[in-house]
Structures are given as C-alpha cells and as structure tokens.
C-alpha cells in the first residue's frame, strides 16, 4: 500500500532494446532510502565521453536527450542521429533527459533545450551528429594509442574499434575512460546524407514498450515520501485576483490540511487529490475581475474586425499594390475580397497540467512535463526566490504538449503551494481548470483582396491581419516594428508568385492569454490563405490544383508535393453526389506539406471527412515511420480544430470546461489517412511535429465548397449551415 515511487531523472525515460531484439524496460522503482542518498539526481556519469554520451561497462550507450518526449518521437529520432555517427550497436542505446542544471553550468552545451517549433531534429541535428562523430573519433584514437598503431588503420563499427591488419578489437566500453581524456585538435567532419545507414530507417520507437503497460511515468505519476496533494482554482477571468475566501466550509473535512490563498488563485491541500478537489468545490472565493469581467467573444470578434480598418504594421510590400489594383480594374480584371476569421482554440492535451514541488532546506526539486526546461528552471527560481543552481528540474514524459507545456503556469502554482504547505505537494489542475486557463491559439480576423487580370491570374494581393500577439503573452514582448513571425507566417512569406504583394498586421491582445498552439500562426493563416486561394481559382474559372501549380511553377519542391497529392488523392476523378475534394499546400518549419481531403455532406448538412492524402517534403528524414505518425496525428489535431474547436468567452471567462462542450475527433470521425514522402534532397531537416496540422482545415473547407458550393470563411466549420446544400 502506498508504495512510494520516486524516479530519478535517469529512470524516467530509460528504455532499451535487448541484444536478442526483444524490448527491455529499465524503469527502476527506487525506495525511500535511495531517494535520501541521491536527492537531486545525477547529471554527470563516470563513464561519459561527452555531455551527450556515456558508455556503461556493460556496453549500454546512454544518450542524453536535449529535447523532451511528448509523442513526437524525439527520444527515438535524436539518438538515431548520434548513433549514425557513433557507429554503435543500436540495440544497446538507452535514453535519458539531459539536465537543464548542467546545461546552465556548462554554457548551454545542450543548446536551448526547447521542445517547440518542430525544432528537435530541425535545430539539433548538427550538434548531435557532431557529438556522435567526436565520440567515435576519440574512441578510435584511444584504441590506436593502446595498440601503438595509426588511427587510420583502425575502424569503428557496431560498438567496437577494430585494427584491420592485426584483427584486434576492443569494445567501446573498454575505451571510454581513455577516450574521454583525448582532446581533438579539430572536430571531425560529419557524414553527409549519402553516407547515412541508420538515419532513414523506420526503427521502432524506444518508448513504445513503456507506453503499452502503464510503465511510462508522466508528471502526474510522481510519488514522493510525505507527499500531499493540491487542487486549485485560479480566477475564472484571467488576470483577475482573489479578494477573499472563507475556508470555514472545508475545516474539519477528512484529509484537508489547509487552504492556500495565492494572488490569482485559491488551493486546497489534502492528503489525497480527490479530497482536495472535493473540498475546493465547497469554497466560494470572491474575485476581482475588473473590466475584463464584462467582456465576451462577440466583443472580441468586433475588436479584430474593427482593427482591420485601422493602421497596420508593414510585413511585406512588393511592387506597387495600389497601382496594380487600379490597372487591373481599368483593364477588365476582377477584384476578389474576403473576410476570414478564426476563434481561440484550446490545446486540450490529454494530461492536464500538474507539477510536484519539494523544498528541502535551501534546495528545490520539481517534477513536471515541460517543453522549455531552461524556462522552467528560470520560472522556478523567480517563483521560489532561490538561485537556479539550488533547483533541480525533473522532466517527465509529457502527456501531450502541442505548445501548452511551453508556459508552465502549473509550476508556479505548485512551488507557491509547496512553500506554504511545508511539504512536498503534487498540484493538479483539473480538466476544467486546464481548459479554462489555457494559453489559447489567438483569435484572428484577416481581410484579403486580390486583383485578377483578364486571364484570371493574380497581379495584386493585399492582406490585412488582426491577431493576438503570442510574444506579448508569453512574456518575451519581442515584437519588433509591431510584428511577430507567428502573426504573419503563411501569408507574408507566401510562395505564390504574385508581382505586387502587400501584407500588413496589427497585434491586439485581450485578457485571454494566447500562446503557441500546434503549427502556431500557420494554423489559422493556412486556413485563411489556402481557402482564399481556392476562392481565387474558382473566381478565375480555374481548377484549384492547376491554379496553385501555375503560381508555384518556380518552386520544384512545391510542384513535387502538389503533384503527389493530386495523383495519390485522385484529383479530378469522379465522386458520388454530395462528395467533394479539396486541396491545400503550405510551408512551415522548413517543411512543405500538401493535403487532399475528401468529404461528404448529407442532406442535414453533416460533414464527414472520409480520406486525407498528404505529401510531405522535409528534405531529410530521420525515421519515416515517425514522420508518417506525426503527419497522421497533425491531421487529426487540425481536423478537431477545423470542425469543432471554438473557445468562447462570456463575462470574461472561458465557457468550455471539458470534452463534453469542447468536442474532439474520435475514432468514428477519423478519416483514412495516407502519407507520402515527396522529398527534394537538400540541406533542410524540416520540422515534422507541426506542419501536418496546418493544411487540414483549408483542405476540408475547400472540399466542403466542392461538395456544396458554400464557402466557409470562419472556423469552426461545424457552425456553418449546410443543410440542403449538398
């Protein structure tokens, strides 16, 4: 009963393949004595060859991942990159998270450790290849020195160095101590893609064995000796403050330890989470919500629409848009203008936010799931008043991230409540708390205006964007010239060739906090842009696929992707009545992604998405099976938001609290999905976690237009009245 399970940082993620090819799980359950002996976890090891790699006496290769695992396959793809260079036995790879404390001490040896922006492989591949190559070359040098032979006569393969002439060989494990002392005059050259053997293989994920039997440890699974639990309610109106709360209703309730008042929230600490949660529901806190308490979604929609009529910051201005519009109008051209809108959307990751905090003298340890380990360390320091070197961050498997775990609001709460309680506290946001206090995808409105010449080709394009600033709400405030990339991506950097092109944007924030949501600005902007391009094609009397193709003729990579989806997606082939196909293509995170969606709309107006065919060009693929899974998942994520995603505000508070009012795509709604690689070789290691989401909404909306003739310019699409239109 009540066994205490505490996992060190190392134990959280270690997974390995056995020599026989079976899968071994190396999750150890330490007892309390062990916790006392190694209270803050280890972030260096005696057998390490560099910060990324340790080679244990039994030949285990321990790789320290600078990026978190949140489903995107980081702890499989990243060690593949290292192992490619290390020439080690893949079956002996294990993975643990790199330590943010060590990263701070050792001048960011692991890079920024950010798991967001589809940047695991995209940004870290070179660092990881270099770490593997450097280790290999030093292992070879150590062997050559021991044998008294030239390094060039030795070869590294399969976790061994071999001297070809004499046939002698040594395991890496026998060489690691010597290798660690060798300093290279210059870092070795890394392999080029043509030399890759491991990269490009569909190896099984290393974490799957832990995720089919309950062994994988998420933050919510943290258990510490003497740990108590906290449930919390923050002010329902974001930014509001707690005026007062009477704790009489919970005094004497079984298990309740105390009520903790925070500036923005009230928490109940109890010996069990359920008791804390039930007690919290008995409290009647009084909040000061200020003017924000009188706002609602209709006001926000008006704010963004009105903003479109005001001044804009210039994001791009090619040619002379004003003159081109005038010329088109006087020469038999056509003007097409449209207003598009998108609501706030919630992340709704499956694991609600939670964190565990333990103070011990002048030290603080926290367990959570974070996408920004260095940011979590800074936040923990700022909240606790301790120095970063007094703090240990234990990152766990993330029960979904999608951007939400890039702002660890739950960590601040857990630290403050643990400090008040004087005991280790696991603080859990209920689903309701999580959904009403998200960092939502920003609400947005855009006005798009285009002049088509007499041949139906666009000659002038003018976009005006009004959207919430993510940078302001995430605390960076980094909006040079009143712009941020997230606001304009997918529009200002469009690849469609239009000679006169102008994009302006104005950032407008409300009290509803906005943040990074899978595919970020591309989520709403791809919907706007790719739906609108479809409108232009129809206005020009052209096939939407051919129209796009003509505007992308200068980009061979785009042509490869769009031709692939047209062919594999049966573009132009006959469909039953009530069915339609839609196409969309988009570039983000150095990846080009196209999709053809096939939908049907019944007489009542119900939409069913039957099939989505995707083609992706990330140029370099580490693990095709993981790429395929990420695109599949991205499409489902995009589809939930496209069809249903609608966070609304009333009296300043978010109305949707749980999955009953914020529905998701489930198995029955999930289309058949085909993913094709349409790669253009090059230097890109394109991101793969986010791109799949972006084109789904416009592909589906365009398919609905094909089926019904109704153009949907506002998400979510469920709100459209399509009855009798198919």
């Amino acid at each position: 009963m009540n066994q205490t399970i505490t996992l060190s940082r190392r134990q959280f993620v270690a997974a390995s393949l056995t020599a026989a090819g079976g899968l071994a799980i190396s999750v150890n359950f330490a007892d309390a004595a062990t916790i006392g002996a190694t209270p803050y976890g280890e972030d260096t090891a005696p057998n390490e060859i560099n910060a990324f790699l340790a080679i244990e006496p039994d030949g285990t290769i321990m790789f320290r991942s600078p990026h978190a695992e949140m489903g995107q396959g980081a702890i499989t793809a990243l060690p593949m990159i290292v192992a490619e260079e290390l020439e080690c036995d893949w079956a002996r790879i294990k993975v643990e998270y790199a330590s943010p404390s060590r990263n701070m001490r050792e001048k960011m040896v692991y890079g920024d450790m950010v798991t967001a922006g589809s940047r695991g492989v995209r940004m870290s591949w070179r660092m990881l290849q270099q770490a593997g190559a450097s280790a290999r070359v030093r292992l070879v040098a150590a062997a050559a020195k021991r044998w008294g032979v030239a390094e060039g006569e030795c070869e590294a393969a399969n976790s061994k160095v071999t001297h070809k002439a004499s046939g002698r060989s040594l395991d890496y494990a026998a060489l690691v101590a010597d290798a660690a002392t060798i300093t290279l005059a210059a870092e070795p050259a890394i392999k080029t893609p043509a030399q890759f053997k491991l990269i490009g293989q569909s190896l099984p994920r290393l974490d799957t064995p832990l995720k089919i039997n309950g062994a994988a440890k998420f933050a919510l699974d943290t258990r510490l000796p003497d740990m108590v639990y906290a449930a919390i309610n923050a002010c329902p109106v974001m930014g509001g403050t707690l005026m007062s709360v009477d704790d009489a209703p919970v005094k004497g309730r079984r298990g309740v330890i105390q009520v903790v008042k925070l500036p923005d929230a009230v928490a109940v600490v109890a010996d069990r989470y359920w008791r804390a949660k039930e007690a919290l529901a008995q409290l009647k806190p009084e909040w000061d919500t200020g003017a924000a308490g009188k706002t609602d979604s209709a006001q926000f929609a008006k704010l963004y629409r009105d903003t479109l009529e005001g001044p804009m910051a210039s994001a791009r201005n090619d040619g002379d848009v004003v003159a081109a519009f005038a010329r088109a109008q006087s020469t038999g051209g056509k003007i097409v203008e449209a207003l598009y809108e998108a609501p706030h959307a919630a992340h709704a990751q499956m694991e609600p936010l939670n964190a565990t905090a333990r103070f011990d003298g002048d030290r603080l340890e926290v367990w959570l799931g974070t996408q920004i380990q260095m940011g979590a360390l800074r936040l923990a320091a700022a909240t606790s008043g301790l120095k970063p070197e007094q703090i240990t961050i234990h990152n766990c498997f993330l029960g979904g991230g999608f951007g939400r775990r890039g702002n660890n609001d739950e960590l601040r709460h857990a630290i403050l409540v643990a400090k008040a309680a004087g005991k280790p506290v696991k603080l859990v946001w209920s689903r309701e708390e999580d959904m009403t206090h998200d960092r939502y995808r920003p609400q947005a409105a855009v006005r798009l205006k285009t002049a088509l010449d007499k041949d139906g080709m666009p000659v002038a394009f003018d976009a005006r964007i009004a959207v919430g600033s993510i940078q302001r709400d995430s605390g960076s405030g980094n909006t040079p010239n009143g712009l941020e990339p997230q606001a304009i991506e997918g529009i200002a950097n469009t690849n469609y060739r239009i000679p006169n092109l102008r994009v302006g944007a104005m950032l407008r924030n409300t009290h509803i906090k906005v943040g990074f949501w899978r595919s970020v600005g591309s989520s709403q902007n791809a919907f706007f842009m790719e739906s609108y391009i479809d409108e232009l094609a129809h206005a020009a009397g052209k096939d939407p696929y051919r129209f796009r193709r003509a505007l992308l003729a200068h980009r061979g990579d785009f042509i490869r992707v769009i031709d692939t989806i047209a062919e594999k997606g049966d573009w132009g082939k006959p469909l039953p009545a009530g069915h339609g196909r839609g196409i969309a293509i988009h570039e983000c995170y150095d990846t080009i992604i196209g999709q053809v969606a096939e939908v049907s709309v019944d007489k009542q107006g119900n939409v069913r998405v039957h099939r989505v065919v995707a083609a992706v060009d990330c140029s370099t693929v580490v693990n095709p099976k993981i790429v395929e899974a990420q695109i599949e998942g991205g499409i489902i994520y995009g589809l939930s938001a496209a069809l249903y995603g609608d966070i609304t505000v009333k009296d300043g508070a978010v109305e949707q609290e749980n999955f009953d009012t914020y529905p998701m795509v489930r198995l029955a709604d999930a289309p058949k999905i085909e993913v094709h690689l349409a790669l253009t070789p090059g230097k890109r290691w394109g991101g793969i976690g986010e791109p799949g989401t972006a084109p789904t909404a416009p592909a589906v909306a365009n398919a609905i237009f094909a089926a019904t003739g109704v153009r949907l310019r506002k998400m979510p699409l469920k709100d459209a009245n399509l009855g009798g239109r198919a």
Partner: protein
Amino acid sequence: MISLTVNGKAYELDIEPETPLLWVIRDEIGLTGTKYGCGIAQCGACTVHVDGEAVRSCGLQVGDAAGKAITTIEGLSPDTKHPVQQAWLAEDVPQCGYCQSGQIMAAVAFLKEHPSPTDADIDDNLTNICRCGTYVRIRRAIHRAAALMKA
C-alpha cells in the same frame, strides 16, 4: 472499510465510498498506469475492467466496485504479451502515450465481444479520445490483435 480486488490482489481500504475508483487506483493503491483525463467519463483515459467489462473509472464510485474484480493496465498481462499489447507494439501506436492504457483496456474488452470486428464495429464502440491522433494505428492494431487472438 471497503474490500477491493485489483489485479487479483485484495485490498481493505478505509475510504469514502463515493471516491471515484480512478483516484483509489492511483493514489491509494499506487498503480499509475490508469490516467486522469477529464473526470466526467468523456475521454476514456481511465478505462479499467470491472468484472471483465470496460469501465471509465473516474465515473464509478469505489463503493460500487466493492467485491468486484478490477483489472488495470498493469494487470492485463505479466509480461506485456497480451495480443492487444503486442499489436500495439507492432504498429507503434502510442505517441505521447497518456491515453494508451485506456485505449488498450477498451480494445481488450471490445475484442471479447467482437472477435472479428469490422471498421463499423470499431467506430460504434471505441470512443476514447487520443489528442495525438493515433486513431489510424489504433484501428490497424485492433485488426491485428483480432488476428493474433485467433492464431
């Protein structure tokens, strides 16, 4: 005191009978493979078997589970060799993995009732949410598991 049998082991618990079974499994018994996702029996992350039937444990009071045989993901097989687990492994189904205990427990109970499931059977019966969107692979893994169980 409430008597509970979880994965074949008997427990005597001094606990309020209205406590959801989910929190008893997680916080009293200490088995954390069963997850909290919504608390209103919407998402299925907390799915366990009660007398062989798939139940969303956040919606079942522990008092109503007394005397019944409860199986969690940890008790599904001693060696992760249940055909459904093997099918999940072969298809590399999980991404973040948080919902997968519930998905697997739901699938195991479903396959008992539908040993040769059609896609329509799957659509009609399996309603657990996966935010990573692993549905394509879940569907494939269920068909694979059905074949394994007949082999």
